[in-house]
């Protein structure tokens, strides 16, 4: 009893002492410029784009935090009225930061340090063939006419040499199979992937492998083999209901592809995680609720290994682009929220975390390359088949070519940290300047350089908070 009293008195004394100190210490703090405040059903939430922390304040503090703006250059005075655990949480989440800290400079420096440092990692996008068994209306590779080429043994050996020379023991290797349609040359995928795994085993490399396929040839047997080869992720695109999908993603023989893809997805090995990508434009958006109902009905959304996400069809200026009713990023930002809300209301889990990034795309680093069937090296898979954009050839890595050097320079010197709009943008730590291709390639529409979060951050946070509350309470 006596001991308890002593402990309680001690705590009261400590608390009093800390109350005084806290007032002094908070003078050295300021609000982060990357805070986003949200009020939902009377509850106050704050998200910080620098840290990715997203917190909810409890009822007792609602009155105090409702009055706090959480914006840069506003007074911290009211923070002192909050309980100490809240203040420690605000520091942990970088909602309040030391006055001396220049967050923009930190975002910028960690970007450059990581972008050009040797992290013993390599990301390769491998294209076994540019041939494709589809003729999608909006395809950005359409201009290249899907040549029926394939990766030679010489290129395969050169890729293995590159991995061997670039990665030391215990390195990290990310492989993405891409095309054309990679499963048209599954023999090459199997041959090279097996060799990569043997090398990885010898050098104790960690390998993460994925495939981007239209799903037409993704039978149960193929999915079993992919899993066996360590390829555990597949992205398959379905663009809506049967009628809409078949009008956009047409097989090369002119037939629709919807039924085959659905049958394949439902039959795949459950160890192959499938991400269904739904490309959105103004032509298919209104059919999305019906499409989502269909996915729920056939049980795809209940499968643990299948997830769904929406992506805007960007204008790449290709032949097919003219046939497509594109959204601008600003327009799509609104639709993205609507689509996610509809999906959530139908019980479809949409993976959506809003995390800060170090750089938006591996293409900007010296650790990521796209290798075409003839060994041409690109920095971005959006340029696959475009020889004018090549940055090298894997068959002659020592070749000093003026075009290669100029193209490399575009990627390695790319930065948005000197852009006045980006400097002030509250979502910069997430988008990190946006898609570089849309500013590097002058032919492309630079409307797509910004992230949708620039326009829909509050609504997307609202959705995440709703899901959190539904799960937690």
């Amino acid at each position, binding site marked *: 009893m006596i001991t308890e009293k002593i402990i309680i008195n001690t705590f009261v004394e400590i608390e009093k002492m800390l109350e005084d100190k806290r007032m002094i210490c908070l003078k050295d703090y300021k609000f982060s410029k990357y805070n986003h405040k949200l009020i939902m059903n009377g509850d106050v939430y704050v998200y910080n784009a620098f840290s990715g922390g997203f917190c909810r304040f409890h009822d007792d503090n609602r009155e105090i935090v409702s009055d706090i703006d959480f914006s840069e250059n506003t007074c911290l005075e009211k923070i002192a009225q909050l309980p*100490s655990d809240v203040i420690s949480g605000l520091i942990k989440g970088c909602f309040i930061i030391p006055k001396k800290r220049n967050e923009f400079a930190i975002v910028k420096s960690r970007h450059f340090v990581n972008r050009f440092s040797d992290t013993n990692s390599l990301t390769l996008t491998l294209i076994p063939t540019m041939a494709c068994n589809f003729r999608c209306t909006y395809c950005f590779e359409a201009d290249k006419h899907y040549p029926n080429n394939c990766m030679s043994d010489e290129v395969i050996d050169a890729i293995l040499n590159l991995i061997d020379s670039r990665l030391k023991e215990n390195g990290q290797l990310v492989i993405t199979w891409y095309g054309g349609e990679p499963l048209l040359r599954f023999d090459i995928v199997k041959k090279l992937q097996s060799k990569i795994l043997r090398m990885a085993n010898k050098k104790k490399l960690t390998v993460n492998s994925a495939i981007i396929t239209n799903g037409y040839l993704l039978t149960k047997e193929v999915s079993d083999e992919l899993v066996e080869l360590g390829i555990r992720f597949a992205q398959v695109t379905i663009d809506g209901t049967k009628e809409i999908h078949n009008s956009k993603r047409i097989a090369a023989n002119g037939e629709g592809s919807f039924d085959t893809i659905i049958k394949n997805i439902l039959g795949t090995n459950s160890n192959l995680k499938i991400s269904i990508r739904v490309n959105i434009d103004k032509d298919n958006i209104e059919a999305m609720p019906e499409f989502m109902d269909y996915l729920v009905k056939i049980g795809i959304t209940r499968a643990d290994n299948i997830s769904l996400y929406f992506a805007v069809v960007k204008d790449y200026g290709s032949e097919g682009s003219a046939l497509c009713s594109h959204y601008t990023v600003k327009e799509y930002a609104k639709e993205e929220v609507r689509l996610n809300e509809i999906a959530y209301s139908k019980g479809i889990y949409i993976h959506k975390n809003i995390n800060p990034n170090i750089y938006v795309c591996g293409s900007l680093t010296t650790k990521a390359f796209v290798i075409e069937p003839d060994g041409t090296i690109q920095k971005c898979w959006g340029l696959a088949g475009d020889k004018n954009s090549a940055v090298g050839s894997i068959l002659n890595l020592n070749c000093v070519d003026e075009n290669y050097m100029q193209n490399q320079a575009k990627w390695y010197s790319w930065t948005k940290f000197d852009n006045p709009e980006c400097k002030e943008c509250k979502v910069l730590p997430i988008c990190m300047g946006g898609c570089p291709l849309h500013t590097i390639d002058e032919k492309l529409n630079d409307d797509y350089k910004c992230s949708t979060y620039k326009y829909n951050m509050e609504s997307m946070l609202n959705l995440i908070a709703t899901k959190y509350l539904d799960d937690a309470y």
Partner: protein
Amino acid sequence: MIRKRKYFNDLFLGLHNYQIMKGGNNMEWVTEPVTYSDGGIEPQGCILDCDLCLLVFSK
């Protein structure tokens, strides 16, 4: 700077434990920060976030 950080850790994290003992729990994380309060970033499955990336499961 290090001393200052330690001071804050002592001050606030210590008090955080005390609040829990008292039964106080005044805020909760919808998503935990991935960046440390000193600006360093927590290692994740993949640090890239390519627009077309399908490796969403690893993040």
